[in-house]
């Protein structure tokens, strides 16, 4: 529970927004598979963040990795939009890949619980992986809640299903891909955070 709460507490931190913004945008785009995309985004993000900390994934985002990441970032939004249903391979794949991409990019500001996870990935693999999933469930809670919203409150479904709403998500996705290609994504989020918080 403490790990989950620390994840929730990290929602307002600029470091976390780098991962959260694409998740929310992807949920807006994936009109027919919101919950699937959100859940698999959490799984992908947790897996890759854990794999990096454990030393299983050390590919740096430089050189040829940049265009690959850019194509993936743009591609997952298109695929999520085209997903035909909650159990489609495209929805699960888009969610996992988008989450993994976010986990690859993420450079977290680390609190006590996340620190405990990251410091122990080498010695307690299963436990730290589980805790990382729990942390991500907290940190990405807004995206999950947005995905659950049409199921919990059917009245919101009509609004969320409107094309302009998906277009907003798509615009964020396009900005995500472009700023990734130019190496300015962190700066964009930082500026937005600074403006929002008057920092």
């Amino acid at each position, binding site marked *: *529970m*403490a*790990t*989950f*709460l*620390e994840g*929730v*507490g*990290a929602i307002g*931190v*600029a*470091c976390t927004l780098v991962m959260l913004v694409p998740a929310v945008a992807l949920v807006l785009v994936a009109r027919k598979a919101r919950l699937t995309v959100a859940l698999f985004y959490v*799984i992908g993000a947790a897996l890759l963040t854990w794999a*990096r*900390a454990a*030393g299983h*994934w*050390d*590919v*740096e*985002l430089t050189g040829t990795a940049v265009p690959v990441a850019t194509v993936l970032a743009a591609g997952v939004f298109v695929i999520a939009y085209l997903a035909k249903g909650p*159990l489609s391979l495209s929805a*699960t794949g888009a969610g996992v890949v988008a989450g993994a991409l976010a986990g*690859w990019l993420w*450079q*977290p*500001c*680390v*609190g*006590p*619980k*996340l*620190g*405990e996870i*990251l*410091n122990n990935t080498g010695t307690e693999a*299963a*436990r*730290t*992986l*589980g*805790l990382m*999933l*729990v942390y991500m469930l907290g940190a990405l809670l807004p995206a999950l809640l947005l995905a659950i919203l049409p199921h919990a409150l059917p009245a919101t479904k009509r609004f969320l299903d409107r094309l302009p709403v998906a277009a907003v998500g798509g615009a964020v996705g396009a900005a995500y891909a472009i700023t990734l290609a130019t190496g300015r994504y*962190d*700066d964009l*989020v*930082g*500026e937005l*955070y*600074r403006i929002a918080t008057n*920092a």
Partner: protein
Amino acid sequence: MVRYLALGVLLAGLAAIVWTAVRGDGGGDDPATSPAAADDRMAAAPTTAEPAAETTVAAAGDSKAAVVDATDSVDGTSKPADPVTEVPETTAPEPTVATTVPPEPIEVLGTADTLTNLDGWLNTDATSLEEIRATNRLTVVQFWTFGCRNCKNTLDALGQLYTDFRDHGVEIVGVHSPEFSYEADVDNIIEAAADLGVVWPIALDTDKRNFHRWQPGNIGYWPRVYVIDGDNQIRFDRTGDGRATYEKLYETVEQLLAQA
């Protein structure tokens, strides 16, 4: 149907992993771990003391610095028997067995890298990490950025460490590695350092070259703290702002000073 089954198996597996992990998570009963308490955590670790807001540091008392060799506290003696009123053998006290365990030796985690391609230094006349290391017994290197909440949570604990051990040959180097562009502005860094009471040397790592070189494998965490000994060996390496982490840092510095 197969998809439903596959998805069910996958989610059940994940739920099992999460459940296993959560059982060892320490529960949610500890208020110190709640987000609401985040700002208070480091303020209390290990003791509260306000770091001086000046760039020159006045040494404080030696209370914590009077390091006691842990083996001194081992009591292996029993009171000698009174020669007049001899105690019967059956009631004689058993010889006391030493129960105080000496601290475990602090292992060497590797050789420390240097700091290169810096954009300058603040709060010091030094121009390199080597120069600082040469004039101190231990160097605490922390990668931080002033916009990071978790980094700010550690500053009181670092301030306490600085106050207690500065006069005993411990120097702190805060390597400022900005995540966002507004954190890279030197004027903003100077202003933030003054506001936050960061009086120890700050190395400006604006392009994060050192941040990434010290944390290889495509990882980069704020804050991350190391202790480097006089032989340039890393003796402590931890990520995050946990109170336990910075209490352990304090103990490690204390122990290394005692061993030196």
